[in-house]
């Protein structure tokens, strides 16, 4: 197992970089961070819209969230892979397809976190803001969202772990992230599949475990 790490460890970490494009675990992390950053504003819109006083807006947001949550991630990935180029009329790199698919997918889940965060605030916050003469938008922007989003930091971090794990399906459309690297290494070695995939599992395990410990610590700090 150690000799596999010695010969292929670097490939697992960064792919063919710098001779080729960035890959491996580094690409997995780049994809995950991009998804979280890009999905965040969309999630705030979805989360706020779900709590809207206008029934049409609330219903549209609920339909979006429930439709996305009812679809398998792989189906969203295939939609993006096959249909997005037809819709937009241009072709995208597999990385961009994957990020788009995950942004759409995760915005529904992150939107639920935002909605729950706003709903969990005491009603007195909005009432106090209103009585101070703040309008509905100002109340949302200056009073409710800052508190809700701060309280939701641990949930966002947990969702980041989910995103990180979800990037592994990018292998099906040929993105060179860490799962795909392991798959390629396995095809080269042929005779040692268990060791290769055990290493891959260990990489994800270590990263996800570390992040979830961090999320738990943050949670104690924010709640306490």
């Amino acid at each position, binding site marked *: 197992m150690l000799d596999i790490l010695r010969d292929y460890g670097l490939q697992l970490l960064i792919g063919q970089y710098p001779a080729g494009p960035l890959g491996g675990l580094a690409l997995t992390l780049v994809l995950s961070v991009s998804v979280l950053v890009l999905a965040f504003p969309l999630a705030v819109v979805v989360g706020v819209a779900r709590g809207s006083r206008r029934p049409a807006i609330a219903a549209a947001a609920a339909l979006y969230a*429930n*439709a996305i*949550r*009812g*679809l*398998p*991630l*792989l*189906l969203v990935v*295939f*939609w993006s892979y*096959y*249909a997005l180029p*037809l819709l937009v009329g241009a072709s995208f790199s597999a990385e961009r397809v994957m990020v788009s698919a995950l942004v759409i997918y995760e915005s529904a889940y992150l939107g639920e976190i935002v909605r729950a965060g706003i709903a969990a605030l005491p009603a007195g916050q909005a009432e106090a803001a209103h009585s101070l003469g703040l309008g509905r938008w100002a109340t949302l922007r200056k009073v409710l969202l800052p508190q809700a989003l701060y309280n939701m930091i641990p949930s966002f971090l947990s969702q980041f*772990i989910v995103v990180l*794990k*979800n990037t*592994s*399906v990018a*292998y*099906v459309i040929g993105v060179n992230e860490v*799962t795909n690297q*392991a*798959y390629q290494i*396995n095809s080269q070695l042929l005779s040692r*599949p*268990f*060791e*290769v*995939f*055990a290493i*891959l*599992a260990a990489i*994800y*395990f270590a990263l*996800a*475990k570390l992040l*979830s410990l961090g999320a738990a610590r943050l949670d104690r700090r924010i709640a306490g």
Partner: protein
Amino acid sequence: MAGSLLAAPDHRALLSGGLWLTGLLFVMSWLLAVLLACGIAGLRGSRFAVLRAVAGVVVDYHRNVPGVVQIFVWYFGISALLPSGMQRWINRHDGELLLAWIALALYAAAYISEDLRSGFRAIAPGQGEAAAALGLTPWQTALKVLLPQAVRAALPALVNQTLALFKATTLALTIGVVDLLGAAVQIENQTFRTFEVFGIVSVAYLAGSWVIMAGGYWLNRRFAVVTAR
């Protein structure tokens, strides 16, 4: 337009075969997952520290490693460690489906066992004591008194896991199982009728997911825990 795609007999056969495999994989994985989850939850409550630790590691592994990787570990990794006679047997009996089944069931079982555990923690300690005082054996207490209450408390989480498992069955296509989504991809590659074929399977998956969500909602109202006033 979707009608014309379904009118071709080979497409219809491919899609209905895929639908059958998706349904089969979902139901079989769910059943095995619930069984395994009860076992894991039991081990985590064991008197022996070693058993508790082993169960903890099993849960941790399955919750921290992506589902695709778990499927690869079974399909490429563990199957290669088996004796060759067993490997041949697996290959003759739909190996992809069999190994995807095991991987998906274990994956879901880890999450379900955690939900059951929180369900058990939600039960007042007096329940077990009262059952013992009435002369019920530990097994009877567990099955007739504690488990029903734990399941009830864990119901929303269990419904979520059921939905997640239903969607996760699509991961089996990464090792070549032609489930509903796998069939759609094959038809897309043959016909390039992207919107029709993915439209059809999207409706099918949404229907399945919404039935699970609605069922969960109904069960939740039917069996909601009524707290004392």
